[in-house]
């Protein structure tokens, strides 16, 4: 087990800069999820840590040792690939034993280690089978067994669940969480699936276009997104955004005005003095509201944002409404038993404490929202 430290990592492929000055610290035993859309550079970071790609600049430190110029195998990290990368011509036993055979371990030691790994992942019955005779979930377990057999300092997992069907993915996700709890090996896990990120990670590092957007616990990242990208990438349906302007009112408070929207925001939500310059300089802002923080006003309740129901999407546990309001469409998560009909006029209510306000550069202006540069974990790793 070991801590992984990434300092000012830069990596380009030709003219494309895949990773732009990323610094990260993954503490010993931590499960860190790198989350972002395709092509955001998350897999590249993983591959650089594994040693499959060389960093253009920056340092990779695993277990206190600078590994930039060390062979992949000597970095003592194990990688699990999206397509399992099992050797098709070898039995499960041979697949699991392969890293130990390469390390020229004695036969009896290999045999014992293979049996131990197979037992952890419940593969004892299929040791003599070939990968093609296994289901997707079983193949993924073999890949994991091959990764744990040489007792690595860290696991690097590159979207290991994305080739599995929905049900198996949930099951394997749980197995991975259990496996991590049991072995406690430092893990970097790459995914574009926010549910995986939220359920598995101790912390989530959100990336976009090679730049680290935010790092924090799942709750942090969800509740206090650093910018519009993080706010809209996490959450399904995504956060609603309403265009408008911000002006200061007496007593240090703020007032957001959009089309049909007029909200008073307390100084505890938005930070007053430094914000004034920013708002004056940039002008327009966006109001962000999560679908679950909006509710449909009861008959007789007033003061809400008027709108008209465009679509209803029942998903069983919830009902998603698309409402035409505030000069655009707003998504609302509501009770699945709601009697609302398409085309019905409704009034939307929300708690001004729950809103986010994003400046013209996309940053969250809420007082409790982090700004990337000021995050202690990053500053520490970069130093």
């Amino acid at each position, binding site marked *: 087990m070991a801590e992984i430290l990434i300092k000012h990592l830069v990596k380009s492929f030709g003219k494309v800069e895949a990773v732009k000055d990323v610094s990260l610290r993954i503490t010993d035993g931590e499960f860190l999820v790198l989350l972002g859309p395709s092509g955001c550079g998350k897999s590249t970071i993983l591959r650089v840590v*594994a*040693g499959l790609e060389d960093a253009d600049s920056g340092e990779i430190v695993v277990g206190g040792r600078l590994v930039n110029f060390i062979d*992949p195998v000597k970095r003592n990290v194990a990688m699990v*690939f999206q397509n399992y*990368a099992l050797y098709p011509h070898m039995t499960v036993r041979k697949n699991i034993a392969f890293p130990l055979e390469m390390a020229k371990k004695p036969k009896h030691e290999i045999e014992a280690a293979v049996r131990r790994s197979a037992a952890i992942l419940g593969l004892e019955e299929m040791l003599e089978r070939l990968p093609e005779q296994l289901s997707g979930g079983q193949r993924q377990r073999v890949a994991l067994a*091959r990764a744990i057999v040489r007792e690595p300092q860290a696991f690097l997992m590159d979207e290991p669940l994305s080739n599995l069907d929905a049900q198996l993915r949930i099951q394997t996700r749980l197995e991975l969480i259990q496996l991590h709890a049991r072995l406690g090996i430092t893990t970097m896990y790459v995914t574009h699936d926010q549910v995986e990120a939220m359920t598995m990670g101790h912390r989530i590092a959100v990336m976009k276009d090679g730049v680290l957007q935010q790092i924090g616990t799942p709750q942090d990242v969800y509740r206090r997104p650093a910018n519009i990208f993080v706010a809209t990438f996490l959450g399904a349906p995504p956060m609603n955004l309403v265009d408008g302007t911000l002006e200061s009112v007496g007593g240090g408070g703020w007032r957001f005005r959009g089309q049909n929207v007029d909200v008073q925001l307390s100084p505890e939500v938005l930070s007053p003095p430094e914000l004034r310059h920013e708002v004056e300089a940039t002008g327009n802002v966006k109001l962000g509201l999560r679908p679950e923080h909006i509710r449909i006003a009861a008959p007789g309740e007033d003061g809400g944002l008027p709108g008209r129901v465009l679509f209803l999407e029942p998903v069983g546990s919830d009902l998603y409404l698309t409402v035409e309001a505030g000069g655009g469409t707003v998504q609302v998560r509501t009770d699945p038993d709601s009697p609302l009909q398409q085309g019905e006029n409704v009034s939307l209510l929300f708690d001004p404490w729950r809103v986010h306000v994003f400046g013209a550069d996309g940053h969250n202006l809420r007082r409790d929202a982090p700004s990337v540069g000021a995050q202690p974990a990053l500053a520490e790793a970069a130093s």
Partner: protein
Amino acid sequence: MAAPGAIAEVTEAHADYARAARRNRLLGFGKGVAAYVVLTVFAAIALIPFVYLLSPSFRKSYELLTFPPQWIPHSLYTGNFHHVLHGTSYPRWALNTLIFAGSVTAVTLVIDTLAGYAFARLRFPGRSLIFALVIATLMIPTAAVVAPLYIMISRLPGWTHSGVNTYPGLILPMVCSPLGVFMMRQFISTLPEALVEAARLDGAGEWQIFRKIVLPLMKPAIVVLGIFTFMFQWVNFLWPLVITTTDNMKTLTVGIASLQGQFVTDWGVISAASVMTIFPMIVVFLIFQRWFVQASMAGALKQ
């Protein structure tokens, strides 16, 4: 009760349906017959030369020159085969051909697989240029290089004697085919990159990755290239003709050609020798036929 008009309509519809079904069946049958006719024609075109070769090998020489030509021999005369085996150096030529084609195939497989792996998986400066050069050599006809090759082989420095009439002289210039390099490179390119990376992380060196991961997965491609090379060299004529001058170094093709006399040619004997030469190739092809299918499917079956 339904109106009489309605009943008539229904009956009419039934009749229509029945007619359409009959037409459809006939059409299907007709298509089947047409397919067989076309296939039979092509099969005949492919087979007739073999039959034409097989027939005179079982006939006496004087029977060959009758008019109209006979396709089916009156009696199965095996004297031609007997003569080939005992009256010529056929066994020696066969041995030479086996050594020649076998060695060329073995060395070609080693070189082409390694080169293909390097071009597909290793990164080195000038990779694309070198690969383009290798492919460009495909455009040079063999006939154009025969003379320079002969001069090279006959004057190879360091050789105690000329390479003419020696196995190395026969084998070496035919070794390694650019087409084979290309084929191996394409095949290796279809193997998932993650396999190689996984092996690298598991501690395998470049050679171990090649030997333990890539090579076993290339079996279908290797078998196909092996058969192609072997068959091609088995009937290779031009180079063995140039580089061998003594009877005991000739290969089958050159040997058979030498049976043709300046004034008298025993076509029965030549036919028999040809049949004996072709037959093993047909057997080899039939045995390994499924590998050809596998190799052509290999791209589709990758995980």
